[in-house]
């Protein structure tokens, strides 16, 4: 009866009272008994259960005794993870029978687990260790021998030590079932169960690193971390935010002796939950590389101690004097923090500010902003429906991915979309009373039932085989097909309205299933390509039909194809879906290009300069200077920006025409090579600030350690420059907090928001970045001094900061943090008494999978489309085209024909007068050819593997070693016209540079697409046309050179890997003393301590 009552009252969380060891507890019926026990912060050991992967009942560790009623003394043993919560149920945790059994389970696992904790990388944060202690298993009874396994080589990222396996099956459940990986499985039987690959080789999944966290013991280890290892308790950690894509996963960065050691997942209920992608987990290793810039360039020589080793502000300012009084254009970056960009804009003035976007990217950015303003973006948890399930809200029942390879550009989001595809299975299982947490039962009953997925992509993706329909089309064709889809949808909606058809879920599925057979037939006949449009029409009709009946469709798109028309078409599709009256609630997710792209949309205004405009301004000013003889030339101030998407020519003209180029960068790039002055800035792991994720969520990241000067966070350099170059003496921040206060005082709402969300001031004490167990503080420097090390403390910055570089400070587990009114601060690392592993997060959640107890308030950036563009579509387009005319304009104008004719006219006029470099006329003639035209150019679509998508991750040797080499992929028809065979080496001219790669032939690829995977080509170069004459077979010499380059890349990666390791190990021996020698002040203190 209680059950029914709860069902009818879906709005509030259904909790019931159960009795654990005769004490009453409130437990949610949404999850199993184990989750209920853990949510009440009681200790019950477990292995095979995982909060987000559900139960399978393999390990038998979470056994409890269930009693029939209060008189039942004996009870029967049940596995808590497999038991639903029922009102009034009575269970025992402390009773002898279940306690003994739990200890026996550990004892049984230990029959084969080696006693290698002292040399195991998991030691000290091992869930198995914790559980062993928890059950009280202390001495070994088993007299036999242990079984042994052979380990596998799983690539450069994940280590394998199978002897430690306790056979909980979590790894394979994560890798295969949860993340959809195909190259990892379970083999063998009895007590010889083996988890690994069929044979040695690199794990292919972009989520393989999660095995390290999913494994309850040390079978899977973080290889780079193990190579330069330190115990968890010796790490100094900070709460950070991943900077490798726009999702903004929360991470915990661990540091020791001045080097970043590892990245761990930091639980965030809304975003990453328990999992990270490998780019985020391993990519940060680039901070330790030799390409890292650590000295000032262009302000005196590298031996200048006062500029480098003993960096002082005065000296720095003095050296900058020659630059004084110059005019500057500031180029910000979507990978720099929100604050740094804001400060740069403030310093140079809004009419001198750019984001390093091209004209096309500016248009794209505006479209992006408009979408964000119109359609609120869901969090990953919102998409996965974690918070909504069972609360009367609809789960997504259809997914349509448009023109974005999610696994490549936002892997963590792709993982969430994979979970959404499970919604139909969960619902189906629910109909026979199988709950969502009964993982294996859900999968069994669903028998492959999936939420319908459709995809319109410019390249084959891993989602294709999960999709009912997946079309691979050139980016332009995607736009065309979307327009057709909207028409079909309109027709479909109108007919649905008149017929008043009400579809049930079953009807819908049956219909869609019926349609699928049809689609397969069509795929078969797709080969002849004679009537391409018709073929797609059938697919589109299916999509339209499905969209009409779907109650809560999710559309996912992104900016990686660099196509503003695509975003516009998506906007139209959303508008079409939203206006219908049958209660359908479509939602849209837009993948932004970089970690702070959305943050920079905040600055978007009509004054913002594109790179083309910068060039124009530079040349105009230069000619002005030549005319008048006065110095009118403009200088460039470039913030953490490498302009990698531009060809050599653009970069050269930028450097030639500017008076001076100052680049703030943490790593070497083309720009740092040509820049006049390079200032070394902190990496995201060493800096502080906020990134704004794809939703517009402002998320703070904090440094794990302070780098040695002259490496400074970019905002600090900017404020130094502001003072001495721009004479902005009002800018005097010594901490990020003061920066926020400054902007808040000037009425900027985002800064106010940040200050309200932060509660640092109200803290009784700052939070410690080190664990209370951080060991050897006095011993680590004994080779240099036997005196107690001064706490690593950048005095001023730390006063305002919320975290201390010390073990001294508030611990996260102190009572003030477990109370409900505790201040909300991100945790540097997760730990709880008796829970040393990452599973300790349970103790910090309101309930299993719930919000963190001391969660930070959500902080969203408020975006509005700037009033200049606040017009109807046509006027807006004219304005856009006037400001930032692009080659796309021409295409669009001809394609949408009459309606936009006037615009295109104006465009041509504007262009001919203002922007002679954009050759719209020739473009038009290209596009006017019909679909059956003989090809004379191919659309270039990026096909780089997920780990190389960011410029920074391209530097990581481990990733380079995973790379299989440069390739061009084309259809067999096109290959024939070249006489190209698979594996031939080809030479392709892309944007005036020549690239080499081997040819791959893909039968299923449309003829007008060329997929490129070229290490040297920036991922930002996407969806550009490559003329056929620019594609030629390489001659013998070029072939040899190419092979050599490919080999050299691997060789130097190997070399770099070992050199970095050697260097860091060396650094471990010396770094502590260098902490003392940071500048005069620190040195003085050191002397004051009576050391000799």
């Amino acid at each position, binding site marked *: 009866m209680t059950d029914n009552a709860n069902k009818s009252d879906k709005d509030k969380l259904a909790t019931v009272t159960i009795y654990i060891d005769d004490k009453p507890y409130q437990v949610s019926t949404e999850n199993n008994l184990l989750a209920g026990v853990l949510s009440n912060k009681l200790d019950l050991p477990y292995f095979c259960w995982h909060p987000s992967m559900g139960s399978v009942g393999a390990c*038998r560790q979470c056994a409890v005794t269930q009693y029939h009623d209060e008189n039942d003394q004996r009870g029967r043993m049940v596995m808590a993870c497999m038991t639903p919560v029922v009102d009034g149920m009575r269970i025992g945790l402390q009773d002898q029978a279940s306690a003994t059994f739990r200890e*026996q*389970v550990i004892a049984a696992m230990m029959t084969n687990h080696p006693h290698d904790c002292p040399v195991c990388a998991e030691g000290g944060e091992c869930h198995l260790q914790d559980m062993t202690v928890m059950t009280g298993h202390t001495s070994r009874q088993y007299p036999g021998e242990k079984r042994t396994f052979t380990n596998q080589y799983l690539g450069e990222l994940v280590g394998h030590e199978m002897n430690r396996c306790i056979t909980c099956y979590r790894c394979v459940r994560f890798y295969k079932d949860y993340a959809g990986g195909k190259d990892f499985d379970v083999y063998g*039987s*009895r*007590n010889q169960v083996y988890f690994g690959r069929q044979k040695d080789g690199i794990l292919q999944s972009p989520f393989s690193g999660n095995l390290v966290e999913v494994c309850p013991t040390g079978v899977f280890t973080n290889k780079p971390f193990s190579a330069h290892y330190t115990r968890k308790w010796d790490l100094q950690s900070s709460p950070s935010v991943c900077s490798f894509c726009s999702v903004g996963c929360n991470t915990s960065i661990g540091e020791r002796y001045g080097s970043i050691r590892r990245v761990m997942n930091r639980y965030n209920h809304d975003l990453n939950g328990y999992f990270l992608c490998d780019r985020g987990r391993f990519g940060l290793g680039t901070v330790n590389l030799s390409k890292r810039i650590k000295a000032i360039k262009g302000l005196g020589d590298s031996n200048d101690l006062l500029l480098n080793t003993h960096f002082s502000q005065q000296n720095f300012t003095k050296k900058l004097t020659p630059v004084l009084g110059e005019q500057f254009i500031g180029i910000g970056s979507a990978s720099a923090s929100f604050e740094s960009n804001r400060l740069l804009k403030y310093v140079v003035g809004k009419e001198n500010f750019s984001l390093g976007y091209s004209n096309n990217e500016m248009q794209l950015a505006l479209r992006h902003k408009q979408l964000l303003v119109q359609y609120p973006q869901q969090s990953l948890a919102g998409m996965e429906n974690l918070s909504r399930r069972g609360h009367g809200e609809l789960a997504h029942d259809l997914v349509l991915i448009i023109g974005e390879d999610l696994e490549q550009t936002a892997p963590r989001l792709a993982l969430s979309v994979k979970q959404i595809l499970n919604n139909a299975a969960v619902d189906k299982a629910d109909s026979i009373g199988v709950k969502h947490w*009964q993982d294996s*039962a859900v999968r069994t009953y*669903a*028998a492959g039932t999936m939420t319908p997925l459709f995809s319109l992509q410019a390249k084959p993706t891993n989602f294709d085989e999960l999709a009912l329909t997946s079309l691979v089309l050139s980016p332009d064709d995607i736009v065309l097909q979307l327009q057709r889809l909207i028409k079909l949808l309109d027709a479909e909606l109108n007919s649905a309205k008149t017929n008043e058809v009400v579809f049930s879920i079953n009807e819908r599925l049956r219909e869609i299933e019926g349609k699928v057979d049809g689609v397969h037939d069509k795929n078969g006949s797709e080969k002849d390509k004679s009537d391409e449009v018709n073929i797609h029409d059938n697919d589109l009709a299916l999509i339209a039909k499905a969209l009409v009946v779907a109650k809560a469709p999710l559309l996912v798109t992104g900016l990686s194809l660099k196509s503003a028309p695509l975003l516009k078409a998506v906007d139209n599709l959303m508008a079409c879906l939203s206006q219908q009256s049958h209660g359908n609630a479509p939602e849209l997710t837009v993948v932004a290009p970089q970690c702070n792209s959305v943050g920079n949309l905040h600055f978007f205004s009509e004054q913002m300069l594109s790179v083309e405009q910068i060039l124009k301004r530079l040349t105009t000013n230069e000619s002005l200077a030549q005319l008048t003889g006065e110095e009118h030339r403009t200088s460039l101030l470039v913030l953490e920006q490498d302009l990698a998407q531009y060809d050599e020519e653009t970069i050269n003209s930028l450097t030639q025409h500017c008076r001076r180029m100052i680049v703030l960068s943490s790593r070497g790039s083309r720009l740092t090579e040509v820049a006049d002055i390079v200032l070394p800035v902190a990496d995201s792991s060493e800096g502080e600030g906020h990134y704004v994720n794809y939703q517009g969520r402002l998320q703070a990241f904090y440094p794990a350690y302070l780098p040695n000067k002259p490496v400074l966070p970019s905002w600090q350099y900017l404020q130094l420059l502001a003072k001495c170059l721009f004479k902005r003496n009002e800018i005097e921040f010594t901490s990020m907090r003061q920066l926020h206060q400054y902007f808040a005082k000037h009425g900027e709402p985002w800064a106010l928001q940040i200050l309200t969300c932060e509660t640092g001031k109200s803290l009784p004490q700052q939070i410690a970045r080190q664990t209370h167990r951080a060991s050897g503080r006095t011993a680590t420097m004994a080779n240099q001094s036997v005196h107690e090390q001064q706490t690593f403390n950048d005095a001023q910055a730390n006063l305002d900061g919320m975290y201390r570089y010390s073990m001294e400070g508030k611990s996260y587990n102190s009572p003030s943090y477990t109370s409900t009114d505790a201040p909300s601060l991100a945790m540097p690392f997760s730990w709880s008494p008796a829970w040393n592993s990452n599973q300790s997060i349970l103790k910090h959640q309101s309930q299993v999978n719930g919000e963190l107890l001391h969660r930070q308030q959500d902080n969203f950036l408020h975006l509005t489309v700037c009033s200049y563009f606040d017009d109807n579509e046509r006027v807006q387009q004219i304005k856009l085209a006037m400001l930032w005319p692009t080659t796309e304009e021409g295409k669009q104008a001809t394609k949408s024909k009459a309606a936009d004719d006037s615009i295109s006219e104006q465009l041509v006029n504007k262009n001919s007068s203002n922007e002679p470099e954009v050759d719209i006329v020739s473009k038009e003639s290209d596009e006017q050819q019909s679909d059956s035209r003989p090809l004379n150019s191919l659309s270039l679509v990026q096909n780089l593997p997920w780990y190389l998508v960011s410029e920074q991750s391209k530097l990581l040797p481990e990733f380079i070693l995973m790379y299989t080499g440069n390739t061009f992929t084309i259809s067999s028809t096109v290959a024939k016209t070249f006489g190209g065979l698979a594996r031939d080496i080809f030479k392709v001219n892309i944007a005036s540079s020549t690239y080499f790669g081997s040819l791959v032939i893909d039968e299923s690829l449309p003829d007008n697409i060329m997929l490129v995977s070229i290490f040297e080509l920036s991922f930002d170069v996407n969806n550009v046309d490559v003329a056929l004459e620019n594609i030629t077979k390489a001659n013998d010499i070029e072939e040899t050179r190419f092979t050599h380059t490919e080999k050299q890349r691997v060789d130097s990666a190997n070399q770099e890997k070992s050199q970095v390791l050697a260097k860091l190990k060396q650094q471990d021996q010396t770094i502590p003393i260098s902490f003392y020698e940071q500048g005069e002040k620190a040195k003085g203190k050191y002397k004051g301590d009576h050391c000799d």
Partner: protein
Amino acid sequence: MTDNSWLKSALTHALTKPLTHLVNLEKPLNFADYCDAGGYVGAAKALTTHSPQEVLTIVNDAKLKGRGGAGFPTAMKWSCVPSLQKNSVPGDSYLICNGDEMEPGTFKDRHLLEGVPHQLIEAMIIASYTIGANKAFIFLRGEYHLAAKRLQQAIDEAYQNNWLGSNIQGTNFNVDLHLHASAGRYICGEETALINALEGKRATPRAKPPFPQVSGLFGKPTVVNNVETLSNLPHILKHGSDWFKALSPDSDAGTKLYAACGQVKNPGVWELPMGVSIRELLYHHAGGMPDGVTLKGLLPGGASTDFLTAEHLDTPMDFDSIAKAGSRLGTGGLIVLGDQHCPVAMVLNLLQFFAQESCGWCTPCRDGTPWAVTLLTRIEQGQGSEDDLQQLQQLCDFMWLGKTHCALAPGAVEPLKSAMRYFKADFEQHLTLGCCPYKHPPNADESAILTAESVPTVTPEELAND
């Protein structure tokens, strides 16, 4: 083909030994002869004169219990299939015949599979009709090559004669029957592991609920029945449920295939009324113990049942009576242990089998059974200690029902636990002597050892002694 006189005499047993009266191990009846001998009458009756619901009622009235070992009422199992509950569209469920007979000491199904394959096919038509299955599978033990050959022949004949396929005998009922030869794992006898194996997945038992009747093969409602259980159906349909119950008036309904092996003069398999006493089975049908050997203990229903001893000889071999005596009827196949063989070695041999066949899913079974093997080996080799015995006791508790994912480990515990109770002295003797008393009797001379080892019957425990 058939020797008329054989068939004639066989048919005289039609009403007393329904399951086996047509068994011909040399050359099983082909389709025509099987029909002549009264075959497919039951199926015809079911399909033409009864609704599925009526067949269910008949089987329910017959009180047929599953012969695979658990003794669960067949009709009750079927009635959980949704199509039988709600009159929904038939055809959306599966029938599987569990022919993965791998229980040590059990060979009754083989007798039927090799001897009268058409009987099983007929039975599966009836069962499929009842539960509304249009696809049926025989999951056959991989080693049963001869059975596979004969079954396939029979299936082909049944297709040719429109007893399988579509529109069977003009009744609009369709069923396709597939024979699947297993890759050979003991755990495939567990119905959900069997289903997983049939789906091409790892043969790991599934968590229950949901039960296969609700979510079975490929997530569809599925009934898994033992060969012997199914084989009763044509006869129940033909002769009625009252006849079936009357076959064994004092016990569970029907006849049962009983078998005996180990230390008996005449090992074999016999169809007898349910509830025959152990004594009658052992001394009358199996010819009793070999000369000079006295009964030490026996496993009444395959390897995964508790030992019974001489004091239980008069227990009727039916589900309840054997349970009352502290064991399980299981498959009804006796494994008899004489006083000249070491019970520790026998249990060790069994545990080695179970440890080998554990699927590796849950901890108690995966790591508990090899642990027990280690301890038993030590004891058998004379290196055991009192602690080991105690540890063994604890392991029995550790692997007991309710603590494991399926019944394999509790099944392994049954002979071990009961052996430690009934043959405690033997275990202790191993400890005190520091060796196995059966291999090295206390005052051993060469000849004594030779006698002990020259017992002609090949028994599992001897293999273990090697």
